[in-house]
């Protein structure tokens, strides 16, 4: 379970990215966070994976105050959170396969398992022919899918995805959403920040919107 209680984030000098945000995301829920560019979606995701520190309030993941985790405990927690960043954070001089494998390597998964998992993810995201391609030579859409594959590769219980379909066509978008739904169905909590309405319009999941740093409910989700 993810909990945010009266969380604010102010960037210097006085940019209020989030204001008193309180939010609970249940285990196994797929949650959509929408809002215009600059509304604070990325900031909220960064707070959930301890890339940013809140100015005020409490952020808990799996019952632990994520801001208080340090060293090994923080590393272990991050292994349980898969993040697909908006700027991808890929190693451009490595192959697509190596980029995906990295999240499994840090948790010492067996080599055979890593190879199999990487191959499987590349196939599911229509990147089977890019296994050995240097990531820097891939298109933006392909890089976005590699970043997504890395986020889900370690089968983390919490997946945070920032604008997963920004550079994708309709068919590939559908493939991405199928993969994220599969993760949700296998028990993962999936948080998707997007301003692409098409990916949540026909779903029954909860949708909330960030406006001027404040959170507003757009649609209640169906009971889990």
């Amino acid at each position, binding site marked *: 379970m993810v909990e945010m209680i009266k969380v604010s984030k102010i960037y210097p000098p006085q940019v209020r990215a989030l204001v008193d945000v309180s939010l609970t995301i249940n285990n196994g829920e797929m949650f959509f966070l929408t809002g215009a560019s600059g509304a604070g979606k990325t900031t909220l995701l960064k707070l959930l994976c301890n890339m940013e520190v809140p100015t005020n309030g409490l952020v808990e993941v799996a019952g632990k105050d994520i801001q208080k985790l340090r060293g090994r405990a923080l590393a272990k927690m*991050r292994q349980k959170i898969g993040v697909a960043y908006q700027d991808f954070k890929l190693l451009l001089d490595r192959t697509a396969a190596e980029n995906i494998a990295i999240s499994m390597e840090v948790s010492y998964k067996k080599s055979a398992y890593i190879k199999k998992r990487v191959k499987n993810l590349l196939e599911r995201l229509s990147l089977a022919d890019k296994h050995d391609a240097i990531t820097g030579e891939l298109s933006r859409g392909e890089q976005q899918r590699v970043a997504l594959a890395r986020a889900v590769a370690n089968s983390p219980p919490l997946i945070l995805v920032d604008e997963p379909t920004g550079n994708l066509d309709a068919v590939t978008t559908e493939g991405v959403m199928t993969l994220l739904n599969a993760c949700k169905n296998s028990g993962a909590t999936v948080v998707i920040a997007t301003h692409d309405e098409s990916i949540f319009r026909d779903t029954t999941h909860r949708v909330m919107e960030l406006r001027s740093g404040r959170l507003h409910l757009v649609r209640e989700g169906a009971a889990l």
Partner: protein
Amino acid sequence: MNFWFAVFRQAGRNLRQTWPSQCMTLLTVSLSVLIFAFFFLVYTNMLGVGDKLGDDLRLIVYLEEEPGPELQEQLRRKILAFDEVEDIRFISRLQAYERFAAQLGDDSDVLADMPQDFLPASIEVVPLKNLRSLTQLKLFSEYLAKLPGTLKVQYGQDWIERFYYFIRLLSIVVFLSGGLLILTSVFMVSYTIRLTILARQAELELLKLVGATNNYIKTPFLMEGFLQGVLGSTLGLAALYVLFQWIRSNFSGPGFLAMFEFTFFKPPFLIAIIAISILLCTIGSYTSMQKFLRT
């Protein structure tokens, strides 16, 4: 995949990616070890030479006239009043003549026309080992010179003084080259690791974000420092050994150097130099890593 496999692979990547600076550091560490070990080898050998010369060290007190048994006993008591000595030997004029003749060997006939008492009587004083510092020897020599009936005291003071000053200078050079070794090992390795970190900053940041532990990130760099220490010191010592063998084979003919037996470092000492180099290089690597992990 286990921890060590991941660490070795990561260290391999680091080395591949930054091999030019790694080679420069390796060369610097090797040179530092070579310079330090060279001077230390000369120093230890000189100490050995000093010990060997010290075994033959004696103070010769030349006397105005040959002492009778009573005077001999008095002089012996006076000498022992300064400090314990290893041996005191009285050499009569005749004994001095015979020794000189024996030293001349086949040329002893040059003494044929000389009277057998033309050399002065003397006392040979062999000091204790602990009395062989230059200051102590000087004090002892001054004390002996003041004994009644003494003409002169000789112990090769000029030569011994020069030797002691040479050893002191050498110990300063060893100290300075040791300092050079410490500085180059720690700072060069530290800066090389910092360059590697800068070159791979994006990857290291990402590793943190995907949940790599500090040990996972840190250990490959520590291993690089360790390798620099092992390879650098081994290369430096190997170069010194080659140099040592070359000097021995080229200067082993008759001459001053042939008087002494020069030896290379004993294995425990070599291991100590390698271990210290490893420690210094690993410290250099560790400090860089700590700085990165704190940010």
